[in-house]
């Protein structure tokens, strides 16, 4: 199962740093996601796309993890040769990560 089945996400940029929030649809998935999605795994997932370290900040009361990826944006939005200079797509790329096992997918409606 992909992380996308359990969580939604948004990424943003500041200089050469990209942050990605991962927020679970259902609080019951938080432990599963938080225990698997370590900073190391996130760094490995992006591989050579990022040069710097990854930090994780936990917000369990919001069902959220905030990842800070350093050296992620080819020098930052104004200098980068990339198409997605802001790294706006990074959030979706992280939702593509495969979880080993866990809860059933959750579909949330407004």
């Amino acid at each position, binding site marked *: 199962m992909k992380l*996308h*089945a359990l969580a*939604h*996400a*948004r990424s*943003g*940029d*500041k*200089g050469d*740093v990209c*942050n990605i*929030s991962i*927020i679970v*649809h259902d609080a019951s998935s938080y432990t599963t996601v938080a225990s698997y999605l370590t900073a190391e795994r996130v760094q490995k997932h*992006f*591989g*050579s*796309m990022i040069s710097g370290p990854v*930090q994780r*900040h936990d*917000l369990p*009361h*919001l*069902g*959220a993890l*905030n990842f*800070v990826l350093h050296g992620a944006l080819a020098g*930052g*939005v*104004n*200098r980068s*040769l*990339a*198409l*997605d200079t802001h790294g706006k*797509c990074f959030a979706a*790329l992280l939702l593509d990560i495969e979880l080993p096992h866990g809860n059933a997918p959750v*579909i*949330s*409606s*407004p």
Partner: protein
Amino acid sequence: MLAERGNIDFLVFECLAERTIALAQLEKLKDPARGFDPRLEERMEAVLVTCRQRAIRIVTNSGAANPHAGAGVIAGIARSRGLRGMKIAAVTGDDVLEHVRENAGDYKREYPELATIEDRIISANAYLGAAPIVQALDRGADIVITGRVADPALFLAPLVHAFRWPMDDWPLMGKGTLVGHLLECAGQLTGGYFADPPFCNVPEVADLGFPIAEVTADGSATFTKAPRTGGLLNVATCTQQLLYEVHDPHQYVTPDAVADFSAVQFSQVGPDRVRAAGAAGAQRPDRLKVVVAYLDGYIGEGQLSYAGPNALARAQLALEIVLQRLKRAGLSDHELRGELIGVNSVIQTADVTSSPAPQELRIRIAGRACNQRDAARIGDEVEALYTNGPAGGGGATKSVREVIALLPMLIPRDSASPRITIQET
């Protein structure tokens, strides 16, 4: 929509991205009467009469590199609509270019990069806090137009003014900063940038309503949006925006406080109504963030599409040809990037061969160059594939843009001197 249906007291337009001021500065150099947000007139034409009728005061950073000229334009629009006795305040003093130049010797110790860019600097602007906007509102301004101000300060200032909050009450500044942070990207709180059907559904995104904060004197806030608008405001949209462009949620540094969002909680209190609680704050920093913008060469780019059987192989050959020719033309020392849109332009690590054969894809080559001529060569070589490349390339586009790069710095707070100028219609 917010002005007409929102039942609001203050309307805020946050309009400046990081490098917008540098672009505005270049425009001001060409024409001293410009240098403010090019959409200022359009926006003010749309809201000024309604805001006057409903006693809604406006705060905006649309002044960009020239708040004085922007204030003049607003005054002109007000007069042309017969709106007399309106007070329009321009906040300046964020432009610290002279200060940075004069003290470049000292700053180079902390920012050695400054030495290499010194002769290419376009602008240096400090992120001012809420104080000068508060003063302008205290002096009766109906409209406050600024240059660079920390985005949340645009929203914090009306709260400080309305509730007479002491600006050294750090927890209150933290709560007001949360309000600003959640509102500053407008539609990103109300279902914009959220839809992922059917997992995250947002109704009527094309008619997205922008957010409103209802704030009380103790700093507690409920977020909603104008009635009969599209979009969605729930705990999930608020949580995404809470962490947007935030690194350590314990320390969100602004000129007015170091806000702490780590214990913020949201509760749905009605349809499209969310209450936020738990923001805190600590003492503001001694130094202000400054962004120095400088010219940093050119980026040239070319794109071309391939489709149908064996599109991938033809596109890969096209990339090889262009890169080979650019190297031969002497651009080999330049930073070059060749990729396949639809395959590996975003996911740079994607394994091209293991994916299913794409029905269509687009090559993209981008490169950095010191001069415009070399940058243009990149797009020209892509265009030449029409006649000299693999079979069936179509839809060539090419571009050259001048790069404005940014160097963030910190300067002592008292190096920036905010000033307020008020004119009356």
